[in-house]
């Protein structure tokens, strides 16, 4: 699949999308080896000089590759669910050129050696670039601070206890304060664990009818409210992952208005689905946090529109059949998302909520900025990490065709619009749709 592209490659006849500069125009882009060397509407107006390989984009959108800031890799530890290689293949098929992985592997990414292992292993396969988060607390136990400073020096982009909330307020306070010593970011799974304990879906009528234990949306609000106070007293940098409730969006909105260093993301299920997707105990719709009510979903869309929600990430959580073919309460949480990130987010464009530029901003430029990655823009000198996609092309999600080892998509059989045609990493076309 990987095609070597030594020398110069011209991408002509493209709709260039660069949210960093607001560029949305027809034009061309030129790469040389691993980097972009020129881009713009006037480029190659007189034709491409001889000797340069040309890829005719035929009017499709050429944008910076997607930066997915929330991916669970199952390597090391659970390679039967996903490996760095299979996740890398799924990523590039979804137009993702960089993914940031959670530390909830086995062993946990809480020491310098594991950070280096993940980075080195991922570099070898030459697919989507992998950047690790490291644990905020040792072994994700929520008790003692991990070696945040040294882990950052080793390459950890930010610090999180992954799918677990940092529950103890004093520990969270110290994590925020200690990380702020180095200007580093804490990423929180904002869910009060004592309220989520035992719950398997959104609390409400649907859960009551199905006889399933609910998780109140207040579990998100309580944790966020607490954390906002801790951010205020520590001056720390805080990012709330996968916001899924109306109250959660409102809390972040107010914190931003107050000037706190707070950002957040959400994932496609939370703006494209609601609790009704659980239907008759569909375990693929069992996510953490749970799919919420229609009012919550609409509030998440509003949050994305007004910029309260900065980023959209896949929240890719591969689970094998054995973890999902179980009674609902026993099934594992999570859904795969790398290969549906772009088409589901494109629904926001097709429904008139976001411009194409804003779609790319939420998926690429914004996460790159937050995490300090030199990615997410079409700029001379930047790495040639690109996605070429047809924004309108209709297709149907078919998990069996996924490159991911796990097929647990909540979007099974959903008709979508927007197809990745080609993914380029460091100048090499690593995925080409046929």
């Amino acid at each position: 699949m990987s095609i070597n592209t030594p020398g110069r490659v011209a991408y002509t006849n493209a709709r260039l999308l660069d949210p960093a500069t607001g560029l949305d125009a027809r034009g061309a882009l030129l790469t040389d080896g691993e980097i972009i060397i020129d881009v713009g509407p006037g480029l190659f107006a007189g034709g491409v000089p001889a000797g340069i390989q040309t890829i005719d984009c035929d009017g499709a959108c050429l944008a910076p590759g997607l930066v997915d800031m929330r991916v669970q890799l199952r390597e090391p530890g659970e390679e039967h669910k996903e490996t760095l290689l299979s996740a890398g293949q799924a990523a590039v098929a979804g137009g993702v050129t960089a993914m940031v992985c959670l530390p909830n592997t086995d062993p946990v990414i809480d020491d310098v050696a594991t950070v280096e292992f993940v980075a080195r292993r991922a570099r070898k396969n030459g697919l989507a670039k992998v950047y690790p988060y490291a644990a905020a607390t040792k072994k994700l136990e929520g008790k003692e601070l991990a070696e945040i400073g040294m882990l950052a020096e080793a390459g950890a982009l930010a610090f999180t206890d992954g799918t677990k909330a940092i529950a103890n307020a004093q520990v969270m306070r110290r994590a925020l304060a200690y990380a702020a010593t180095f200007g580093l970011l804490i990423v929180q799974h904002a869910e009060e664990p004592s309220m989520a304990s035992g719950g398997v879906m959104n609390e409400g009528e649907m859960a009551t009818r199905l006889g399933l234990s609910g998780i109140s949306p207040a579990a998100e609000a309580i944790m966020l409210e607490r954390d906002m106070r801790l951010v205020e007293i520590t001056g720390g940098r805080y990012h709330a992952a996968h916001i899924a409730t109306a109250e959660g969006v409102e809390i972040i909105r107010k914190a931003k208005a107050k000037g706190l260093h707070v950002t957040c993301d959400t994932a496609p299920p939370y703006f494209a689905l609601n609790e009704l997707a659980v239907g008759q105990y569909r375990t693929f719709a069992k996510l953490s946090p749970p799919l919420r009510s229609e009012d919550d979903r609409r509030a998440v869309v509003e949050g994305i529109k007004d910029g309260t929600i900065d980023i959209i990430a896949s929240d890719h959580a591969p689970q094998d059949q054995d973890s999902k073919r179980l009674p609902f309460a026993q099934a594992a949480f999570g859904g795969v998302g790398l290969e549906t990130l772009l088409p589901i987010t494109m629904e926001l464009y097709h429904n008139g909520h976001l411009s194409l530029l804003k779609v790319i901003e939420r998926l690429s430029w914004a996460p790159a900025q937050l995490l300090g990655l030199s990615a997410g823009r079409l700029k001379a000198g930047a790495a040639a990490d690109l996605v070429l996609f047809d924004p309108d092309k209709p297709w149907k999600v078919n998990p069996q065709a996924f490159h991911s080892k796990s097929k647990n998509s909540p979007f099974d059989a959903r008709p979508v619009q927007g197809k990745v045609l080609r993914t380029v990493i460091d100048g090499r076309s690593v995925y080409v749709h046929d």
Partner: protein
Amino acid sequence: MTDMIYPHRHLLGIEGLGPQEITALLDLSDSYVETNRSSDRKLNLLRGKTVINLFYENSTRTRTSFELAGKRLGADVINMSVQASSVAKGETLIDTAMTLNAMHADVLVIRHADSGAAQLLSQKVNCSVINAGDGQHEHPTQALLDALTIRRRKGHLDGLTVAICGDVRHSRVARSNIHLLNVMGANVRLVAPRTLLPGQIDRMGVEVFYNMRQGLKDCDIVMMLRVQNERMAGNFIPSIREYFHFFGLDYEKLSAAKPDALIMHPGPMNRGVEIDSDLADDVERSVIREQVEMGVAVRMACLDVLTRNKAEAK
């Protein structure tokens, strides 16, 4: 009789003292340094006076320093440590104070794990009280000996830039030094991870840094604080190696300071935790042993003025 150079009955803290009082104490201490270096070190100034060292916390160097200071001045010095006293039998601080008071001591030197203990004691006894360290509050004689060490090396305190580095949150030494150095016109910087800084510390007239190289840049004095083991292991900082990597003083970080910057430490040191072992022993840079010498002189001066005041009050 000389003027009352230190017009207070007790020495409970640096906070509230003025530059004249501090200067007078340092001047007197200076004269005792010379006395201590001469062959005839025994004086009779405090003959017949009783100094009681009341130490509720383990301390070798401070207690020994006070004991030596008292003895050089000719006082009778009695050491009471917590294990040997009736404190172990449940006597309260005030009960102990009343008992000691009845023995007509002249100076009580107290070290206690609780902030405010010296003040409480001073309200209950007739004699003078010297605070030899109370909780996380103050350790005035340490700040005075640090100031004396700096003044003898640099000639003055005003205008110097002093970086106090490490566990400021739990440090009485830091608090006393911040007060003293500010009063004397020095620029005080603090360098620590945010978890080791107490709330609103910036209101105490200091400049706060979270990075050693930035905090040490062009400073004249680097004052390292001891990091206690119970602060380790993930509560305030993740580990010893991470702490040393970012906040331990080594030659590399020290190179940001002025070439003639001095290194100080109140002791006892954790070598390899807050300070590189070779650096601590570097006679060109480290004045850590000199601080110990100054400690005796400063404590002699304090005992001298407090007993003198008492005599004059009579």
